[in-house]
């Protein structure tokens, strides 16, 4: 019985706690619909409560011991004399959420060439050129990029080859993989390679090399044949055929788990959510990333275009997500990746390394880009913006600048400081601040300002709409909730 008495305090103890009242813990809130609010604590745990309860809790009118009181207390929105460990638990959860920051840069993108056999209208960077000298990475630049990469303190180093079409300079891919692997014999990092490729130049020799070094392949698949070929023109109009042949070879020689695919949403995609998802299912993928339209190009010229695009994309996303949830209900385990990223932020204490959903932004501190010419960019989008003449996010050049010079430059530290959502106007007290992030390149491209006015921001509108939608599904649709919870990894 002595054990029981230490586990359970007597009734007087609790009565004393109730009499002394409760105190608030830090929390934000946001309207969910006409009658409900989402409240989120400092660690990102959320509750949905009525407006009346929200005002009651803040005005200290909650009845101690009532169900809403107990729920708020157990979720760390309020505390009383009986819950002194609340602060330590919150601190622990907050620290867990922030932990990825300490890991620093993990993803390093090597642009081996800008040359490409495709001429996709949404790509700002590729060149239709046979001139290797003009647009290919040289060994000298690659050596500098490898040096730079291993100066990252991260234990997990991922090198991803990008283009143009990265395999058009396969010699450079080989060089970097061999040199980095050699270097890693003394560094002992968790080193991983990914080749982003449209698969058209793929040969058996390349696949043998990939097998030897356990290289992952990430390809582009925009949807069914007609849509894919329309989005991704190449001589012969056979991009889809090439990617199908390539995917089959990759799966046969490297294994199905070594292949991933990404889609880009174009204007033509917006009415084809189901066919695009069906294509991914048919090709054996277990997930799809319904990526939003990039603002580069049109949006720089007109803000209204950006807002219009966001509305259309959200309709596309919701239609796609509804369909994917239906597929899951029928027994097919299939994930929408962006949704899964957000759900993991909402429902677990773990942070993310997804650049756009971090505070501060993950530019350079999560992912960094080494261009073919040695220029260093804060993100792939920064590189695209630079190709359109705006080099605001160029951090330096591998041949001229040191690691310390780049990582401590005003060009990087300025945007990083400005993208801390805890201090951004309209983000700092937003109920979704814990789940969101900031995209300085997007806001610079659309508003000419790295922070941007969120009232006009397509990025803000997109994320707020998705987060409201997901919480409504979690709260109001038990079947959808079961599906969404199965996507959360703990």
């Amino acid at each position: 019985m002595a054990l029981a008495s230490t586990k359970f305090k007597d009734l007087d103890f609790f009565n004393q706690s109730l009499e002394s009242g409760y105190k608030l813990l830090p929390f934000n809130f946001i309207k969910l619909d006409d009658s409900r609010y989402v409240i989120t604590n400092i660690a990102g745990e959320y509750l949905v409560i009525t407006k009346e309860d929200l005002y009651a809790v803040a005005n200290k009118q909650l009845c101690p011991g009532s169900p809403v009181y107990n729920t708020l207390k157990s979720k760390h929105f309020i505390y009383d004399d009986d819950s002194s460990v609340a602060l330590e638990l919150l601190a622990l959860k907050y620290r867990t959420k922030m932990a990825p920051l300490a890991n620093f840069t993990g993803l390093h993108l090597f642009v081996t060439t800008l040359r490409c056999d495709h001429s996709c209208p949404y790509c700002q960077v590729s060149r239709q050129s046979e001139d290797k000298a003009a647009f290919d990475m040289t060994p000298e630049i690659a050596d500098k990029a490898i040096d730079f990469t291993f100066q990252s303190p991260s234990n997990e180093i991922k090198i991803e080859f990008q283009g143009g079409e990265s395999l058009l300079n396969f010699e450079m891919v080989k060089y970097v993989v061999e040199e980095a692997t050699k270097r890693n014999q003394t560094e002992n990092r968790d080193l991983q390679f990914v080749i982003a490729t449209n698969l058209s130049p793929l040969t058996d020799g390349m696949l043998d090399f990939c097998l030897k070094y356990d290289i992952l392949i990430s390809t582009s698949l925009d949807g069914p044949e007609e849509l894919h070929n329309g989005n991704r023109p190449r001589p012969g109009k056979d991009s889809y055929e090439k990617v199908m042949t390539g995917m089959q070879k990759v799966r046969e020689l490297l294994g199905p788990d070594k292949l991933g695919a990404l889609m880009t949403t174009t204007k033509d995609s917006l009415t084809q959510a189901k066919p695009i998802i069906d294509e991914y299912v048919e090709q054996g993928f277990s997930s799809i990333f319904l990526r939003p339209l990039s603002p580069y190009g049109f949006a720089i010229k007109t803000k209204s275009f950006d807002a219009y695009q966001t509305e259309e994309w959200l309709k596309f996303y919701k239609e796609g997500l509804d369909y994917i949830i239906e597929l899951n209900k029928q027994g097919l385990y299939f994930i929408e990746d962006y949704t899964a990223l957000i759900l993991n932020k909402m429902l677990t204490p773990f942070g993310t390394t997804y650049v756009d959903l971090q505070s501060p932004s993950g530019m350079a501190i999560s992912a960094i880009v080494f261009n073919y010419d040695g220029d260093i960019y804060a993100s792939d989008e920064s590189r695209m913006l630079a190709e359109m003449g705006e080099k605001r996010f160029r951090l330096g050049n591998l041949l001229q600048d040191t690691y310390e010079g780049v990582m401590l430059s005003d060009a990087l530290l300025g945007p990083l400081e400005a993208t801390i959502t805890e201090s951004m106007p309209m983000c700092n007290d937003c109920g979704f601040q814990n789940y969101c992030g900031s995209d300085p390149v997007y806001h610079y491209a659309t508003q000419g300002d790295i922070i941007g006015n969120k009232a006009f921001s397509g990025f803000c509108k997109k994320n707020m709409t998705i987060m409201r939608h997901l919480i409504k599904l979690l709260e109001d649709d038990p079947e959808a909730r079961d599906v969404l919870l199965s996507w959360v990894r703990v």
Partner: protein
Amino acid sequence: MTKESTTPLVKNDDGSLIILFPKSVYSLDAVKKASYKFTDSCSFLINEQNTAYEVLCKPTADIPSKALDELVNSFCNEVLDQDLRERIASETHAVRSLILAQAFSKTSLLEG
């Protein structure tokens, strides 16, 4: 200072609105933050009177009367919400600092 208005909501002929927020009830920050949030639909001019903040709100596009009423309702509710946020932030400021200090005190995030 111009003559003080007393009517809480005035609709002007040019489509603009004047809304009064009593200083004894609302803070200037709450009024400003709510206004900022609505800058996609209106432009704002905030004046300080003796007993109230006077918000001149000009819709940036023609808005039907019913939608304008809804906009005003949303704006007024947003001022209330901002006021509540301010109170929560003020009351929890010390404990927030304590939690953050505790969170970072046992992690390598602060190590040089």
